[in-house]
């Protein structure tokens, strides 16, 4: 495993980023955010002798890409919606959907982990009848999705010494994807500079705080570190 590779997977489409709606008279205008300057951050990383690979925005991320990242890089940052539903009063993500499978949280019927197969007609046909296996994460893995804290973090094997960053989504469990992307960006920017997960998590948290001041659903969202 290289100590100098960071992979970030932007698992959404660009049109899903945050928006700003303004109304002037009867005219309503919706402006879509362009997202942070990932290309600029790649250059910053290069100067620090770190390879920053940014994949996406795209939902076409396959299982091999994720497992390769865990094996070959020191940090893997996943930015996505998180698939799931509302449980009780708040959103709980229980899957990260891949183009050829899913990583699913444990539940009463499954130990959770990576399921590879074919998505056909909105259904997943597994390639194997074997039970899913939890992917073993690398030094630092970030799950920047809506409420990745309650269930998603349990679908990974977290070796001693590894750090898993998650988001609780606040009271409603939701966090806008643009907010997650910006938080991930500032987390990585800090991590490139100082290699410190806690300090970098604080930078991400500051993004959540700013976002929560303009959008109620992002208010109170909290970055958490496992264990």
């Amino acid at each position, binding site marked *: 495993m290289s100590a100098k590779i960071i992979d970030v997977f932007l698992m959404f489409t660009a049109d899903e980023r945050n928006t*700003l709606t303004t109304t002037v008279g009867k005219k309503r205008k919706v402006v879509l955010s362009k997202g942070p300057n990932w290309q600029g951050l790649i250059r910053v990383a290069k100067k620090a002798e770190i390879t920053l690979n940014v994949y996406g925005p795209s939902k076409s991320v396959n299982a091999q890409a994720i497992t390769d990242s865990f094996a070959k890089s020191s940090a893997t940052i996943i930015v996505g919606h998180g698939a799931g539903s509302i449980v*009780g009063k708040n959103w709980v993500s*229980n899957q990260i959907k891949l183009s050829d499978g899913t990583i699913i949280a444990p539940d009463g019927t499954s130990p959770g982990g990576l399921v590879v197969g074919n998505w*056909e*007609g909105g259904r997943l046909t597994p390639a194997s009848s074997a039970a899913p296996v939890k992917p073993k994460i690398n030094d630092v893995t970030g799950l920047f999705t*809506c409420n990745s804290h309650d269930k998603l973090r349990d679908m990974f094997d977290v070796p001693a010494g590894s750090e898993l960053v998650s988001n609780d989504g606040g009271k409603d469990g939701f966090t806008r994807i643009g907010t997650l992307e910006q938080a991930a960006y500032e987390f990585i920017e800090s991590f490139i500079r100082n290699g410190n997960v806690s300090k970098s998590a604080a930078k991400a948290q500051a993004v959540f705080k700013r976002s929560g001041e303009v*959008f109620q659903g992002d208010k109170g969202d909290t970055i958490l570190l496992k264990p």
Partner: protein
Amino acid sequence: MRLYYEAGWEVPGLLQAAGKVPSQRGTLDIDGTKVEYESFTIRGSPGAPARTYRLMFLSHGSLSEHDRADYVTWQSIEPKSISVYRVGRKVIGAIVEGVVRFDADPKTGAGGTGGEVRVAYQDVDGSGRMKLALQNLPLDFRPEVPAWAKKE
């Protein structure tokens, strides 16, 4: 107060949103009935507002050891793909995958999208109206073939 979700809601334009050219086609055997499916990707028009509809989430939670409650919340869903299931020419159900799209904050105008959903709809009585059958689908979810669809 308990709320019982039984009747379902009509989702206007759900199948019309599917378009004409499927991205995927296939056949399943569901309890001895041949069921065909077609999957369609829904793409928005540049500059046009996202197509959304309101989805009701009914979930259960515990208020305490003795009290359970049913929670009802509504979110706007932007469908990204629809898989339509047919027996012959009869549409029996659909699986919709999409994202939660938040209304713009009335004070700041801030908006965006949230979690991904997979929901299944069923035409339970042959009326042509799709009603919500299940949310947060299991990976291997298979639509039921209703009795009306088996009749010649």
